């Protein structure tokens, strides 16, 4: 599973960072950055939740 984060869409709601701090971080300006793709099943669930929680729909999950 890969995470695609559209930085152009992100306006800094910070929902992904709160839900999955191991996968996402906020940069110094408050916009989301992707730390890494999920590895465990638990992280995959968190990645999916982060995608669903984004009000800008800036996060897409790519199943491989």
């Amino acid at each position, binding site marked *: 599973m890969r995470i695609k984060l559209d930085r152009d869409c992100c*306006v*800094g*709601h*910070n*929902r992904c*960072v*709160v839900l999955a701090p191991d996968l996402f971080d*906020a*940069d*110094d*300006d*408050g916009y989301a950055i992707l730390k890494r793709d999920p590895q465990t099943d638990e992280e995959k669930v968190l990645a999916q*939740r982060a995608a*669903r*929680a*984004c*009000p*800008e729909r800036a996060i897409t999950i790519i199943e491989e």
Partner: protein
Amino acid sequence: MSKVHEDFDHNSKEFRADPIPYYQKLREGGTGKSKNYGGVWFVPTYEDILKMSHDTESFSPAQGTMFPPMNTPLIPMETDPPIHGKYRQLLMREFAPKAIAEWAPVIRQTASDMLDEIFAEPPYDLGLDYAKMMPTAVICEILGIKFEPVFQQWVEDSVYSRIDDRAAAQAATDSIYKMFGELLTERRENPGKDLVSLVANAEVDGEPLSDEVVLDFCHFLLVAGLDNTGFTIRALLMQIGQDPELQKRLIENPKDIPNAVEEALRFFSPVIALGRHATKDVEFSGCPMHKGEGTVMLFGCANRDPKEFENPDEFDIDRFPNRHVAFGVGPHRCLGSNLARVEIIIAIEEALKKFPNYKLGDGVVTRYDDLGPLVVEKA
């Protein structure tokens, strides 16, 4: 055109006192035109608010976001690209989660001290003495100004009196501009780490900001940071006070407080509405909008839209996803949201620590129109 929109006025006393009963009919009518405010379009659904907030080419905040308008422009919100991004960038870092986290100890101390004072002697008012005061004290720290009780009145007059007493609103706006105006020279010669110093010394495209723009910034920072945050603190303290199960859960699991805060932001929607103007003739959601016409996005209404939120009239801290638009959505979304969230979370944490099983006093009511008292009793 649906009748419900034609007569609708988001500033009417009835709507302000309790907007919830209006929402279903407004959403069922979709986006529609009112005869008020020169014929504004009300935008009530979640889907339409997302669409309008993102279509910055057709809908601009630069001609005003409030109906009736404020006396002075709200900078950076009421600007268009490319200057909007440049103004916003001046403060992005200061309001990002990392910078705000550094304020957390100050916020916690402020909350804790206020609670100690409140619980020293009854009546214990968590509304006027806590919810209302805490964000004011915090924004004054951040702006580097000494807290004066009169700020509350200035902000309330500047925002709310504009609806029925323009002279009072103008006087309040003038007072705020005068106060910041007197600080400018000092903050330029002797800048501190406060936001007034930052804005006063800021440059955009290599040019310093004009005094006018600096003061517009300062005014909006003061206005935006006060009653919306306080309103949400009071509303959530009230919700907790009337729901013993929720109270118990949050005392036992403080890690659930941030979710409770998100749900309070959705459920009570402190900023009920903000608007735009059409920049051109445009067909929006089946409505023929003309260049220059105003639009009012009803955030509170969208936050209870059943197409986005299951059982929207239920207060449910386990709601997921909770993609509310309490801070707006899109490029103009609230710059101070990270600060507001931290303030509300800490305010609730501290109140539940110092006074865990508080009960609501007699006659405490839900209020949507202003930030009233919230008298509580010890269990």
